[in-house]
């Protein structure tokens, strides 16, 4: 039930948002109230992906599914070939 609810949030709130930067979020699993995600497209390797994850995705999910303890990004960000924001030198 929790997994379905989270999938619905990803489909209706999160993916329409991140699509604005060419990104998408895939729900891999929910285990012991921990959500495992994979981020692709413009999100993969993006310099701001941690902000989007912690300040956006995690807060959206926790607000609707408060029993979620943590949201974990399993993406190989080094494999990203078209990240939306690249890190610089600061």
């Amino acid at each position, binding site marked *: 039930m929790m997994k379905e609810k989270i999938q619905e949030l990803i489909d209706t709130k999160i993916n329409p948002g991140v699509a604005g930067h060419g990104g998408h979020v895939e729900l891999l699993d929910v285990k012991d109230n921990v959500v495992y995600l994979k981020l692709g497209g413009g999100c993969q*390797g993006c*310099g*701001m992906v941690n902000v989007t994850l912690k*300040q*956006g995705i995690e807060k*959206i999910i926790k607000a609707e599914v408060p029993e979620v303890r943590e949201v974990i990004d399993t993406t190989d960000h080094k*494999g990203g070939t078209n990240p939306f924001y690249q890190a610089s030198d*600061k």
Partner: protein
Amino acid sequence: MPRLLLLLPTATYRTEAFLNAAGKLGIELTVASEKSNVLENQQPHGLLTLNFHEPEKAARSVVEFAKRVPIDAVLGVDDETTVVAAVVSAALSLHYNSVIATSAAQNKYQMRELLQKGGLPVPRYIKVSIEDDPAVLAQNIAFPCVVKPLILSASRGVIRADDPAGFISAFWRLKAILRTPEVAAHGPAAQEILVEDFIPGREVALEGLLTKGELHVLAFFDKPDPLDGPFFEEMIYVTPSRLPASIQKEIGSCTARALKALELKDGPVHAELRVNERGPWIIEIAARSIGGRCSRALRFGTGMSLEEVILRNALGMEIGSLERERQPAGVMMIPVSRAGVLREVRGEEKARAVPGIEEIDITVHRGQKLLPLPEGSPSYIGFIFARADTPERVEATLREAHQRLEVIITPQDFD
């Protein structure tokens, strides 16, 4: 819980470390960046867009925001955002460094002026315009000298010149960097160049925390590679320093006097100094913590990260011990060796297998365009972290791991 407004440029390396520290402390966070986050409309308390190039405008936006979402502290993570944080804090009547102090720490000429007035040991310097004729300027310059931008960090645009021909070449090269749209956006400071004496000697870095004007030295780093130019690519930082305790004390004292001269009073500071037979010389002081991902080399008290220390200090939370762990530690910033496109980094597993290596973090992605210094940004392929029983062992471990890496860059010309 208190709420902190964290000013994070989209291109900063510092995001993960600060978000992890905030999560550990359980503080409420609003993250502001110069470009809007895709989920900002859905999380309007946690995400904010501010124009960092216009601090007054940013401050007005935050004042309106704070009417709905009260802010207890503001923190910038790089040279530009520390100035914005000062302007915003003043508008919200929050405790922070003054705008004058943070501006001086961001602008190398203003910094030199204040340090010289304060009687601090600084290289002789002059400020020139990018519209000046370098051939004329070269007639009145002592060599060797260093040309550097008033702004920018990580040694970008910093070039040594040993004679008039070298100066003219360095001047044009820096002028081209300052004219790129990304750098020119910094405004008038991107129209000027600092020319100063080259100071020979060993370079060290001091990481510190200011509380009510008092400097707490968090770590001394040696930079074991000679930084004699023509470019000044920093590669290895190792702490604790192998310099004699008396010299370290002198460096700490010199830095404390410099901070007073700049009127910096609160928050993290990163100072870079040269040490020679005449004592320590202030090269740079920044009102921020160490750049890149280098802070991972530091742990305090019972395992606090540098970012946790900084957030606790900003919010007036108890910090406990500021003593760094006893074990020597270090970081290598993997340099960009040539211009081109990154194809692959080979040998990561072999490099990780070197005893003492804790982490190898490759921060560029395949297909990314790379430029070495002095033009380059990003300046690094990634970071190698090590801990060992002695500083010498840390340095050797970092070099060994670096030798096992093979960075494949395909040459490519960039316009």
